[in-house]
Each structure stands twice: as structure tokens, then as C-alpha cells.
């Protein structure tokens, strides 16, 4: 049996969770607030949407870097 379709609210949460922006606390990067509000199926949907998004981003980037890669490089002080 396939999972029920996501609600319109969940669709927005999925989109929010695909962002590569993550804030930090004392222990490192924090989970996205939208991720906490998603049901398990929505979290898988967010994962799959992120895979597609990063593929798109790296295909568009001259150095093949996704927003995840750019975010990490930004945090180590490289903005190249």
C-alpha cells in the first residue's frame, strides 16, 4: 500500500527542508526546523527532493558544487 499523499502544508515543509541552510549551536549544525514537523513519509520526500535539487545545483555550477558543498566551503572560510 502506498503512503497517503502529502498535505499542502507538508509539501511546503518538504521544500523548506531541501534548503542547504542550517544554523549552528554549540554542538554543531542543527536540524532544519521544518524537518521536525514532517511525518516519516515527508522526511523521505524531503530527502529525495534534496537529491534532485543538489543534482540540479551541481549541474548548473561551473565547478560542479552543490549548495551543500558551497555551504560547507563557506563555513571553512572559502567563498571561491
Amino acid at each position, binding site marked *: 500500500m502506498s503512503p497517503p499523499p502529502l498535505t499542502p502544508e507538508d509539501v511546503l515543509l518538504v521544500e523548506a527542508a531541501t534548503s542547504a541552510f542550517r544554523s549552528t549551536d554549540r554542538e554543531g549544525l542543527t536540524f532544519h526546523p521544518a524537518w521536525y514537523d514532517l511525518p516519516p513519509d515527508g522526511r523521505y520526500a524531503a530527502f529525495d527532493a534534496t537529491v534532485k535539487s543538489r543534482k540540479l545545483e551541481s549541474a548548473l555550477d561551473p565547478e560542479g558544487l552543490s549548495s551543500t*558543498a558551497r*555551504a560547507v566551503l563557506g563555513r571553512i572560510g572559502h567563498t571561491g
Partner: protein
Amino acid sequence: MSGMDLDEHLAAIQSGDPVAFGRWIASTEPTLRLTLRSFAAVVDVEAILQETLLRVWQVAPRFLPDGEPNSLFRLTVRMARNLAVSELRRGGAHRLQELTDERADAIPALTVNPPDPLLRRRIEKCQNELPTKPGMALRARLASDGTEPDDVLAARLSMRVNTFLQNVTRARRLLEECLSLHGVDLTGELP
């Protein structure tokens, strides 16, 4: 493309070269992310992935390769899985045994897709055909490189956050439809 040894970047990474680290990330990130899919319902994989890469950058200068290809990648997969399990324990895991059993699986083969100028042009063409507001929202998301939260991006476009997210979602759907018409499938590696 498999059979590559990305440890060719190791010496430069160990000497603190962020450009080399970027090249290494560009090649390893897709496979690394897919190895974490089983954790997707219980941890925020994006946060785990970024935190792991930051830690790899920190430990790389002291890392001793084992002589087999892609040793830094294999270390990274183990670190990412361990970090995911640690987060799971912190959150009181119910599925820990199931997920840790999966940890014992072999390290996956690394698949590297080099930049494809034709694909890039096709995506740009489809992107240029997007309606104005969805196009603006998606471009803002892409240009932010994960350095700004959506509320900042939305405010810059004079949109409410939900409107911004609706526009990005619509843009992605239209972009995927356009790419699909031209034989490009972004879901390739997904189960």
C-alpha cells in the same frame, strides 16, 4: 564513472587547500548522501552530511590512508553513519538496531558524474522558460548557496515565506517537466 581514486586530492586537502576539498566534495557528495537514505526518517541528513564534511576537513591533516583507493571517502561514510547513529541515540531511537545492522554493509562503490556542459545548457534553457515569480524564487534559492535562510530570501523578493516556498516548489515541478521532455531525469539514483 566509477574506478576513480579520489585520494588524488588527499595531499592538497591535507595541506589545507579548500579548492581541492571542494573538488573532492563535488565528486563524493551524491554517493555519500545516498548512503544515508535509510536514516532519512530519523535524522536530518542534510545537517549530518554538512557536519560530517566539516569534521572531515578538520581531521584530514592527521588522516593516514590505508593504501586502498578512496580511503578518505570510506572514512567519511563511516563518520557520517556514526554521526547519524549518535544523533539517533540522543533522540531516543526506536529503530537503532535496524539501522545499525545496515551500518555493517560494505562501503558503497563511488560513482562520480563529471560536469556535463550540455546538461547545464539544457537546465539553463528550461530555467529561463519559468514564469517570473517561480523563476525568481528558484534563482534566489540556487544563488544563496545554503548561506541564507528562506525567510531572508523571501523578504528580499518581497514575498511571504510560504509564498516563496510555493514558488520554489512550482519552479522545480515545471523545471522537471521541461527537463523530462528533453530526456533528462533527475531521479536517476533514487530507489
